[in-house]
């Protein structure tokens, strides 16, 4: 918690002020989380101060919230190109990324619990604190400005895909909120870039690409292999199977499903969780793309039959 507080102080996240009349205040809370490695071992205990962004109102507390993230196709393409060209791919992470974003709007927050304060004062936020509706966008804008100042241009075919041409080659950077992957045929260019970024943000250098957005990346000199085995294990655990039965195909060969099969689920949450996870799993599992398309159609009104279909997919994995 102290580490988080010092990060908040360092970035000068807020000023203590009296609340001006007519302004609303956003609440906040501490969130505790255990981060794991790709093999499931504990990496870090994490504490984060988050604002209760759900109480913000559109047009008053925030305007635009849209933000781009990298397309998975772009990332897979990048990995293939790098593997054929034998470029190294490195992975970097911006620490406390959102706190770098400058807020355009006036937002007031109650002081965090557990911190000594004078009564009557509230925090006037200057930086995009986690949880605020506009935080991701503010953070992306800040990063865009910095990366442009380093000579990178955003690709018109995927706007979070940045390129810089140097004398020695080309540096390619793909951004996914606070995670980025960099590859290049210009090795010196990469180290210069890393230094420049470290000067502007608090960076964490994660070395060669290994574990990115829940996707495991293994590589031999000839090729890269991407998988999501930990993610699969997590979904199967959530489904709470009592046996270890497996099937050869993800869906029954004579199956035709419609909206009217079976009885409506009383609690569709499990269905939503499984289908949502399966959609994310198609990043590395093209073999289930069709069946995921089938089960996705029933998300609005899932029935017992649809849940059975979704669970069968898990048995196939």
């Amino acid at each position, binding site marked *: 918690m102290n580490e988080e507080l010092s990060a908040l102080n360092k970035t000068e996240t807020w000023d203590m002020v009296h609340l001006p009349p007519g302004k609303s205040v956003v609440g906040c809370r501490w969130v505790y989380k255990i981060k794991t490695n790709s093999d499931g071992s504990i990496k870090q205990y994490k504490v984060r101060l988050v604002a209760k962004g759900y109480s913000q109102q559109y047009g008053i507390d925030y305007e635009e919230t849209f933000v781009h993230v990298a397309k998975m*196709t*772009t990332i*897979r*393409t*990048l990995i*293939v*190109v790098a*593997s*054929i060209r034998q470029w190294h791919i490195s992975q970097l992470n911006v620490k406390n990324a959102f706190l770098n974003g400058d807020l355009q709007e006036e937002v007031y927050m109650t002081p965090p619990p557990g911190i000594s304060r004078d009564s009557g004062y509230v925090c006037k936020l200057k930086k995009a604190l986690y949880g605020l509706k506009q935080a991701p966008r503010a953070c992306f804008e800040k990063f865009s400005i910095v990366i442009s100042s380093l000579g990178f241009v955003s*690709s*018109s*075919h*995927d706007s979070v*895909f940045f*390129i810089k041409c140097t004398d020695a080659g*080309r540096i*390619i950077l793909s951004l996914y909120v606070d995670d980025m992957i960099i590859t290049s045929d210009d090795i010196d260019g990469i180290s210069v870039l890393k230094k420049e970024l470290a000067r502007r943000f608090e960076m964490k250098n994660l070395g060669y690409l290994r574990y990115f957005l829940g996707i495991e990346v*293994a590589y031999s000199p000839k*090729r890269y*292999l991407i*998988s*999501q*085995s930990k993610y*699969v294990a997590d979904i199967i655990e959530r489904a709470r199977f009592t046996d270890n039965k497996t099937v*050869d*195909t993800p*869906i*029954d*060969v*004579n*199956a*035709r*499903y*419609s*909206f009217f099969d079976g009885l409506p689920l009383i609690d569709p949450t499990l269905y939503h969780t499984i289908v949502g996870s399966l959609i994310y799993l198609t990043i*590395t*599992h*093209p*073999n289930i*793309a*069709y069946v*995921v*398309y089938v089960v996705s*159609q029933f998300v609005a009104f899932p029935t017992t039959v649809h849940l059975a279909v979704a669970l069968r997919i898990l048995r196939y*994995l």
Partner: protein
Amino acid sequence: MELCAYFDADHGSDSTYRKSVTGFCIFLGDSLIFWKSKKQSIVSQSSTEAEYRAMTFTTKKIIWLRWLLVDMRVSFFHPTPMYCDSQSSIQIAHNSVFHERTKHIEIDCHLTRHHLNHDTITLPFVPFSLQIADLFTKVHSVSRFCFLVVKLSMLIAAAS
């Protein structure tokens, strides 16, 4: 480093609204990079029409990928083959004559034809049995399913 694509459609397979499904997969070299199963937005009246919409959809993705790869310093000297198992769709794409039954897919026809004439794509025929994109449009028997999955050059062992 060359792209190649397979695309297919399953006509009217959605039992409620009778819409068709587009399925495609695109390889860069021998690595699969892009695939999709997607319900078409409007109802197609014939299987050729459904195939044709799938063809246009895939063409647009190919164009995007080619530009993206140019950004990654990959240049193209050859048109991208888009393997199709429908002879009639291939004929419509090559033939500039419009028939009574193609008039409502005319815009789609023009887009594909344009890229065909500008050597961005080609439309080779592939027999149905070797149509990999079949995997993305319908349900299969165990043997057919395994056959198609192997063609994706996925390493199943690595995932488990």
